[in-house]
């Protein structure tokens, strides 16, 4: 699943390829802020191309205003799909009453994602409507749209400025969800470091244009000499004072996953 760590990816068609060449080659002043924003997002996406597949373990800690905490353990598997969004599978190990519940998602560059939930007690696979993307993922401060694969086409972009964040020079840009009707956001402001195009911080603005949440990403490590993944992501909700921290461990790339690990048959034998 997750994707805030995964910079968006995209197999370029001829047209975007050409426009990217232009934007990369021509001097910056000939670019509009929108073009530059898209170019940066596309570059970040391209840099993650070819990872193939990976598995990872995630602990998700919910914290309320009073500081009370509750942790869920989730295993995730992700498969890169050429020419489209990733396939991902998340399996819940705790809380124990939902152990074995699995969430399967096929993200698409264009159009709605496809999502299913597997309920182990009933051995039942239920279709989920991915348009409910602004809903909370498992009671956390992450919405479904925050944890689903971040395809370039799902947003439009605008480059704002460059500024330093935690000692790194960053591109600061705005992105606007294409699916404005169902997204919980009007815009996001993102910080990507210039050196490696890794997401460092995101501010989320709700439908009333007020600052809803801030995501801080830290502990990046490089895998296979190319792909960056973060160890920690912290989402703070400024309106409720609640927060959710994701801690990632055991990233393993090129594990040999295929489409057959992401179908309804394999979903039913999930442990």
């Amino acid at each position, binding site marked *: 699943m997750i994707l805030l760590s995964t910079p968006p990816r995209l197999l370029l068609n001829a047209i975007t390829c050409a426009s990217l060449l232009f934007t990369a080659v021509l001097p910056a002043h000939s670019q509009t802020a929108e073009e530059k924003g898209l170019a940066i997002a596309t570059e970040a996406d391209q840099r993650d191309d070819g990872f193939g597949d990976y598995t990872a373990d995630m602990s998700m800690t919910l914290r309320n205003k009073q500081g009370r905490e509750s942790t869920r353990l989730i295993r995730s598997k992700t498969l890169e799909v050429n020419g489209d969004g990733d396939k991902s599978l998340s399996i819940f190990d705790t809380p124990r009453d939902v152990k074995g519940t699995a969430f399967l998602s096929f993200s698409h560059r264009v159009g709605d994602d496809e999502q*299913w939930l597997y309920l182990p007690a009933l051995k*039942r696979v239920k279709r989920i*409507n991915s348009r409910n993307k*602004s809903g909370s993922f498992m009671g956390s401060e992450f919405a479904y749209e925050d944890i689903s694969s971040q395809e370039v086409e799902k947003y439009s972009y605008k480059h704002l400025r460059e500024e330093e964040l935690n000692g790194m020079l960053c591109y600061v840009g705005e992105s606007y969800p294409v699916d404005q009707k*169902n997204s919980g956001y009007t815009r996001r402001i993102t910080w990507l470091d210039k050196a490696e195009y890794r997401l460092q911080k995101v501010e989320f603005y709700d439908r009333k244009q007020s600052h809803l949440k801030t995501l801080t990403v830290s502990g990046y490590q490089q895998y296979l000499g190319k792909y960056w993944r973060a160890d920690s992501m912290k989402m703070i909700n400024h309106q409720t004072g609640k927060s959710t921290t994701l801690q990632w461990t055991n990233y393993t790339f090129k594990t040999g996953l295929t489409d057959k690990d992401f*179908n309804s*048959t394999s979903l039913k034998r999930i*442990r």
Partner: protein
Amino acid sequence: MTNRRRSWKRLYVYLLCISLLGCLCDHFIKTANAAELRGDFSLEGFLFLSNPAWQHQENQSASVAGNVEFFHDLQNNLSFTLEGFYRLDSQDKERTHGDLRLAEFLYYTDNFEITAGFGRVFWGATEFVHLTDIINQTDQVDALDGEEKLGQPMIHFSLPLDACVIEAFALPWFRERTFPGAKGRFRSPLAVDTDAAQYESSSKKYHQDFALRGSTTFADADVGLSYFRGTARDPVLLLSFDKISGSAFLYPYYQQINQTGLDIQLIAGEWLIKGEAYYRTGQSRSYAASTFGFEYTFVGIAGTMMDMGLIGEYVFDDRDNGWLPTIYENDIMGGVRLAINDMASSNILLGLIRDLDSGSTIIGIEASRRLGDSLRLTLDASFFIDMEYSDPAFAMARDDCIKLELVWYW
């Protein structure tokens, strides 16, 4: 007859213990992390709000139940899963029962999957009535809503292809439905004597049943087409008299049927559309039944984290109701599901089933939340309103109740 029942039960418990011990030993001898043992333990209390309608029934009951699940990766692509269940009920002898919910070997490759043993399979799409789900027998005495199922002996072959999944089931041994005993509520005026079960087939419970299913996802729809030939899971209840005492009782009669089923889950914009239908022959005249409806979710209602799902469904069943009665003849169902999305995963479900012909209405409320990390508390209430004499659910007209359940997951 009761002795035979008891010996079956005893056999189950033995089977369970032996296989569990065997697996545990096996596990400790072999690898340490390829096995997994877990389960739950629950306490449950029923309080009925009216005096019972039928002789011997009680006003309250309590029970304890447990599930033990053992999983072992025997080698690459081969595993064994065992799930045993037992409930001890304070009132109803029939509800004191055990079952081997699962005891199956699973072998899979990239191209196919095969399971053998006691398994569980779900077919269907809708929320209120599960018409097409036929592989497993309903553990009727364990849960009124029919969601609890008995383990079904089977060999289950799955072939996932690019465009669809083909499954075949060989079902060598039939499981009889459980029914509440004389002291139990939610029953017909006369208790069902499950020991007196009769079969249309001379092979009785060893009739070789078989089933096929094809399922596919195209565009925004998940579609399943299924065929079943064998012993009906829902028996006809017939009246008989005890030869000695002359007292009346009901006994189940299991007929041979053919059933072709269809189930669909479909996304239409913000809506989820679901439907199930089947055509069945073998029980009185041939008939069809169908149910369909929608689910719509309001996300983050009133600026909170709460989600509110609305469910509306309709069922129409054209069976010979004099032979094989159902409470879902021509009914509408409505539900509201509130997910609080808090740390305790609290949720509330309100459901209503109304018979359009008789006006009989059943209302159910279910509220549940987690306590700490491994306890879950559930409050259930059921109300039977304006029950019409002709409605098959009339026998439960006085069974309004509140149920409290605490489950500990270990």
